[in-house]
């Protein structure tokens, strides 16, 4: 099942004509002949959910902003992707940048935004360059700018390069960053769809989410909503890595099981030779650890025991040292905490400190109690979800592999 990855082999990202020849920008042409609210309702009916991790229904989000009267509105494509092991948005941008641009233009039209941004991770030099070229070509073809395709609709798109902070993928921190402020989450409410960039109603959508939009418009919400489970329809890009045979990006319908993804020869193809499955981490560094017995869980957005986040699946085999993993998780979150609230700023630091001692087999008795306290405060008291994320994998590891970590 291909939606986002469709035609990748036919398309030259540096040549807009290859995209147009494969049906590109038809959705945009269709959209501008309809009313914005009709577009919103189409997306709403499709059941599309945000692909950045939260899984919030995209149409509902658009509807909030579309219905607000404001002198200015914004839409932002979130391409800040910076969780370890997640690189799907980068690949989309590199393989088919116009799919993102078209989705963004449709979103802008639907909500009534005249200015759009692509907020791209500061380390993504190559995809930023490709997007820039794509944008120039789209402007030449009058898909972007004043009077899109001869209509009276204006949408300007700007590429805004962040500085590579993980927290700037959080929509409020991202908005602060564009405003020139420190990349830190803001207090909610107000939520961005009501008051976001420069205090104006603002939609922030993940790049993969937007890349789904042209397909939905072209084929219709009914077709899309029938792919996968009804509450979480469509396909998703999953990233397989670790001890699995075939690594990389796989597009599968939501509702596929982890077992299928990892062991089906179409996708992961099973474990690497000589390696035995231990557990899988679902959804990136902030993801939960899935044991063998839970592999039959459906991978979906919405209520789920194992949230799929941005779609990364790290397969860990029994040779792996859990202490290395614990360190790498703690190291990542310690580095990326924004420093705003006490539990995250200090807690991630202390967890990293303890992870260091753990790795060196230098754990003291009191550290064990401290781990529990830190994980508890991260899970329960932080300002934004990043703090909670920092505790997810650790908490699972402590409860599942206490013996491997602390000894008997």
């Amino acid at each position: 099942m291909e939606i986002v990855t469709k035609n990748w082999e036919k398309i030259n990202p540096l040549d807009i004509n290859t995209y147009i020849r494969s049906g590109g920008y038809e959705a945009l042409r269709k959209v501008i002949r309809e009313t914005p609210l009709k577009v919103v309702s189409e997306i709403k009916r499709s059941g599309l959910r945000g692909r950045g991790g939260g899984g919030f229904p995209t149409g509902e989000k658009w509807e909030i902003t579309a219905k607000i009267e404001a002198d200015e509105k914004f839409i932002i494509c979130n391409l800040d992707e910076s969780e370890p092991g997640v690189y799907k948005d980068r690949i989309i941008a590199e393989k088919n940048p116009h799919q993102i641009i078209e989705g963004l233009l449709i979103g802008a039209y639907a909500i009534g935004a005249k200015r759009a941004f692509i907020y791209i991770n500061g380390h993504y030099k190559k995809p930023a360059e490709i997007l820039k070229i794509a944008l120039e070509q789209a402007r030449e073809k009058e898909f972007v700018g004043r009077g899109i395709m001869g209509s009276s609709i204006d949408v300007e798109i700007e590429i805004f390069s962040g500085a590579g902070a993980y927290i700037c993928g959080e929509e409020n921190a991202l908005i602060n960053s564009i405003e020139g402020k420190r990349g830190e989450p803001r207090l909610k409410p107000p939520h961005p769809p009501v008051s976001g960039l420069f205090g104006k109603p603002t939609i922030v959508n993940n790049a993969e989410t937007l890349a789904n939009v042209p397909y939905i418009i072209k084929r219709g919400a009914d077709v899309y909503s029938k792919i996968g489970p009804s509450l979480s329809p469509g396909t998703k890009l999953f990233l397989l890595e670790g001890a699995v045979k075939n690594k990389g990006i796989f597009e599968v319908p939501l509702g596929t099981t982890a077992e299928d993804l990892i062991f089906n020869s179409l996708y992961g193809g099973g474990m690497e030779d000589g390696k035995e499955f231990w557990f899988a981490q679902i959804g990136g560094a902030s993801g939960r650890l899935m044991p063998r017995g839970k592999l039959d869980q459906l991978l979906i957005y919405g209520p789920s025991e194992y949230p799929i986040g941005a779609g990364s699946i790290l397969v860990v085999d029994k040779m792996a040292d859990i202490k290395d993993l614990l360190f790498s998780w703690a190291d990542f979150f310690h580095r990326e905490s924004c420093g705003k609230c006490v539990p995250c700023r200090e807690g991630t630091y202390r967890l990293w400190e303890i992870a260091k001692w753990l790795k060196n087999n230098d754990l003291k008795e009191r550290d064990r109690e401290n781990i529990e306290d830190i994980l508890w405060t991260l899970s329960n008291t932080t300002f934004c979800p990043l703090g909670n994320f920092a505790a997810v994998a650790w908490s699972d590891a402590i409860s599942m592999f206490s013996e491997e970590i602390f000894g008997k």
Partner: protein
Amino acid sequence: MQIKINNKPYNCESGETIFSICKRNGIRLPTLCAHPDLLPSEGVCRMCLVETNQSKGLVPSCVQKVSEGLEVRTETENVNKARKINLELLWADHAGKCAACLRNGRCELQKLAKEYDIDGFKFVPRRKELKSENELDLLKDNWSHVVADEKNPCIARDSQYCIECRRCVRICREMQTVEAYGTNYRSSNTNVGTPYEIPLDCIFCGQCSAVCPTAAITEKDEIEKFEKALADPQKMVIVQTAPSVRFTFLEEFGMPPGTFGEKKLVAALKALGANKVFDTILGADLTIVEEAAELIKRVKNKGVLPMFTSCCPSWVVYVEKYYPEFIPNLSSCKSPQQMMGALIKTHYAKKEKFDPKNIVSVSIMPCTSKKYEAARSEMKASGRQDVDIVLTIRELARLIRKKKIDPIKLEDGKFDPALGISTGAGMLFGSSGGVMEAALRTAAEKITGEELGRVDFEVVRGEEGIRCAEIEINDLKLRVAVVHEIRNAKKMLEDLKSGKAQYDFVEVMACPNGCIGGGGQPVPTSPEIRSARIKGVIVRDKGMSIRKSHENPVLKKIYKEFLGKPGGDKAEELLHTKYTNRKNIS
């Protein structure tokens, strides 16, 4: 709307936060980032977390707004667990040098640590305090970036005490619009500091030091200089005390705000060994007489109007740095401190046959900015620095405690009479609107030549940020305004620029409610505390036998013997000053 807190019903309005309802009803919630002088908190410190029936986890009460059917519990097992763990985390990141700390006993973190039984370190401290050999290696690893800034003339910063609550960032932005502070680096290296870590470049108001919960930001401590002068038998130590500090001094020793502490203050200074203790109120009265003369002259000669008061050095430097086009509007009068300073080393020294070079002139102020003012190069009427040492009332109290003096137990002291007669008008200088009222009392009599029947100008009193009034004196109509906090001053200046407002005379104080809320006043501060202080001032003014500056007998004598007439050559030389455009200097 009604909500339940700890099973008891409370009335509230929609839009209110749980925190503010608790505060109003005397339910204490710990906090390290909220402050009554700041806009509602952003929820940074996570100390005020509570449990509610409407959310699964803990919620920050300072941020969470009330809703129908809300039930709050402020002291559950989880709430206390959260507070304790987060305090432990902060504690290990804090300097932990309590015994030697300037804020020892007055530190909000220390108080909470005590309340929540934080003793010792649950986590390895990241600062220097651990000395044992085996822990030292850990420390090397843990050592975090510390910024100590000694370059600001009034404010000292040491980030090892900082708990990143950001009150300073917010007060500097919200109240003073100066934005000297910001946040640097991220994660555990996050440091509240200045942009690019330059030395603090500001208007010296010290509000940051008044709201800082720890000793990360303090007044620049000059106790040692004072002690040295006191110990030197060659030196004649002459102290002056500002109008407002007599109403706040005893707060440092456990008395309620607004308690009149003049006599104990003088007694304590004498007990420390000061040779003479004078009253800055004489300087205030001089300022009024000179300023009234200047105002009348400006009005009569169609000079630059409105005239701005110039006794607040933070306001003066704000104009010099941000609105130099308004420099001609600033009164050329020196502040009371500097008028006193000039008199002490000229007139008084001459009269008493002291060599001014052996005089150490010390002032006790509610203000951090006065340290800067005293050091300004223009302030050398006597040929040398007129005021040598400026101590905030906090520093003085610290020294008094250090010397184990209990001022409350001392016998009452009295100002030395040579420069120590106080008036009600001068007393008023302590709170916003006071300079205006004192000036109006004098100006009215000077213009009409008649004695005022009622001396109270209530229209200029109050707590609003900008208060305007039209005062009629004979056929002269004076449009006056009283402004406090720089954000209001900025608005006033912009209104003047755009023509939206017209005034003849404007009093501006940088700190909330004037000097009574000065950056060097005792901590804690809040609108309620300042109200109580102001009440003290007004009661005292009413009870004074002399309530008008120009009737101060010492002042009259000085004009007769030494200065000539207000605005005359001698007065001009000693009591007036010049200003500099500092827009491009940082």
